[in-house]
């Protein structure tokens, strides 16, 4: 086995990566930039903690029925016996918290807050993930096309982005989500509401990622490896899929992890305003809205608030770490 970088006639050349990887040259041999990023990420404890929380939340959402079965009560089940009928607030200290009701019960109906938080994670994450996916797909396709082809194609797409970004999204979302009937597009109930929210959030936020991808494509297009591919006779699709996209994955991933928490907040806001997923389906935003009516029972607001806060924080910490790992020079 020869020395790692021992190439005839080049022993004197400096190896910039050796500096980057520290003293151990051998450790980086044959590593892709993705693998190097992973090594960096593994050293970032804060980002790892964020990732841990995210994984935990996803598991909670996935296994919500199982968790509730063992640790709580069905989220829609009333427990009037836990409510003081004169004040309509929970009996017992701390809003009725006990081993049986880990986070206590809601005022009025006595539903199990723990179960509703667990089930609320499903709606929150589902909508945030799907909306992000939708905006990433639309934004990437249109961004690459605008950046790569340029000319009038770029002009049309860029103007469309401006129009979408100038759109008063919240007002529009409230109006649209308000007027759509209980049954539409062959869907009804929660499925319809979730699809609607995914569409509204995803469809109107694609220009953010679109702009990032377009900008990156514009700068990548000037790189000589694109010219090299063209001088070999490569066609548009080859250049877009084989040369450009692999270089866009990092910025797209970074953007996605940072936009998921924004979407979680947006969904919570819509649910809070009563135009999200409809009650009695539990959502964190919806719970906050109800809690606002019972300000004498602060624990009712604390748990959904905390859930939103922890989730958003976890995604942001992970997203920051991911950005540092994928792009150590920063931007």
């Amino acid at each position: 086995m020869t020395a790692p970088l021992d190439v005839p006639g080049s022993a004197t050349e400096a190896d910039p990566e050796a500096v980057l990887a520290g003293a151990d040259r051998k450790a980086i041999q044959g590593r892709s930039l993705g693998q190097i990023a992973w090594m960096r990420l593994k050293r970032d404890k804060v980002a790892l903690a964020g990732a841990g929380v995210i994984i935990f939340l996803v598991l909670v959402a996935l296994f919500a029925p199982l968790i509730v079965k063992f640790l709580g009560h069905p989220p829609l089940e009333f427990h009037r016996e836990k409510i003081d009928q004169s004040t309509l607030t929970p009996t017992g200290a701390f809003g009725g918290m006990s081993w049986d009701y880990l986070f206590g019960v809601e005022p009025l109906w006595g539903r199990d807050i723990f179960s509703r938080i667990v089930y609320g994670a499903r709606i929150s994450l589902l909508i945030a993930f799907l909306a992000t996916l939708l905006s990433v797909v639309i934004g990437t396709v249109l961004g690459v096309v605008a950046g790569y082809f340029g000319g009038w194609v770029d002009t049309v797409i860029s103007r469309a982005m401006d129009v979408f970004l100038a759109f008063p999204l919240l007002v529009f979302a409230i109006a649209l989500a308000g007027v759509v009937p209980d049954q539409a597009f062959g869907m009804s109930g929660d499925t319809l509401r979730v699809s609607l929210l995914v569409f509204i959030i995803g469809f109107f936020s694609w220009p953010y990622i679109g702009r990032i991808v377009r900008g990156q494509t514009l700068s990548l297009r000037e790189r000589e490896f694109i010219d090299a591919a063209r001088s070999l006779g490569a066609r548009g699709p080859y250049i877009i899929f084989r040369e450009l996209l692999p270089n866009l994955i990092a910025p797209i991933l970074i953007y996605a992890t940072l936009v998921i928490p924004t979407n979680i907040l947006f969904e919570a806001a819509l649910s809070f305003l009563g135009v999200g997923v409809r009650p009695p389906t539990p959502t964190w935003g919806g719970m906050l809205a109800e809690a606002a009516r019972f300000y004498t029972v602060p624990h009712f607001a604390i748990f959904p608030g905390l859930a939103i806060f922890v989730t958003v924080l976890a995604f942001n910490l992970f997203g920051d770490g991911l950005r540092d790992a994928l792009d150590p020079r920063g931007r």
Partner: protein
Amino acid sequence: MTTPNEPLLSVQDLQKYFPVTKGLLKRQVGAVKAVDGISFDVFKGETLGVVGESGCGKSTMGRLVTRLLEPTGGKVLFEGQDITHMSQGRLRPLRRDMQMIFQDPFSSLNPRHTVGAIVGAPFRIQGIKTEHGTKKAVQEILELVGLNPEHYNRYPHEFSGGQRQRIGIARTLALKPKMIIADEPVSALDVSIQAQVVNLLEDLQNELDLTYVVIAHDLSVVRHISDRVAVMYLGKLVELADRKDLYESPMHPYTNALMSAVPIPDPARRNDRERIRLQGDVPSPLSPPPACRFHTRCWKAQAICKVEEPPLVELASRHQVACHFPEKVPQEAAEAVSA
């Protein structure tokens, strides 16, 4: 050199104007005359060096010839075929024969691809099957350019500048081209490595019967490798001659100025040469000086230089110059000029 009379590449009055637009409506307000009417031939097996200061249109010329850019005017003939405005589809098979080495080894290799993928890309793009598979073919080429074939699975960031340039060279060799345009192949490299890469290019030329156009921004890099040298200034050819003639008796004042920037190895001879320092920067190709474009910096400039453009004429055997007052002209040619 099989048929010395038929050029492999023939460039005739080639032009490239980049439009300069303004405002929302993209109104054209001017043009960068990056390449403005240059003609030369390149013959099989030879190396043509193209020299000029940065910004004088060398890269643009290379990109026009390889049809990465669409010429504004003039003609490019490759093996007698007019490729000036040939569609990219029809160019595809011809691209195997003409390849380009790029200036910046850090931007010319896709950071997300392995060396194997980069050097194997020509086979994939051109749909070529090799006898023992692409991997074997790639490894043979890696060996040819002095890289370890076991580095097949490594990524560009794991290599130094010189090694990356070797990877770039390997990629151009994959399709066994007839001609390679090398755009400043060593100017991004450490001086200590430049010679290695130039030597590699020379070895490959002998081994694979290649024809080169080697672009450089000073005369020292191409001195060793070129058979003929062309000097460019602001989109124009100002001098074109056999290497020996150009280095020993440069006629154009600009070439003389460039020459005095080349270090003389022998200290005893250093004082023989009067040092000419070029004044000022290259003027903008947006509004190049009229007539002789060099007149703003030329110490021999006369009134005529500002009104009449000197044509590129053969003043000695195989020695073309575009100047009203060339230096060291043989007697009979001097008479022809003044006549």
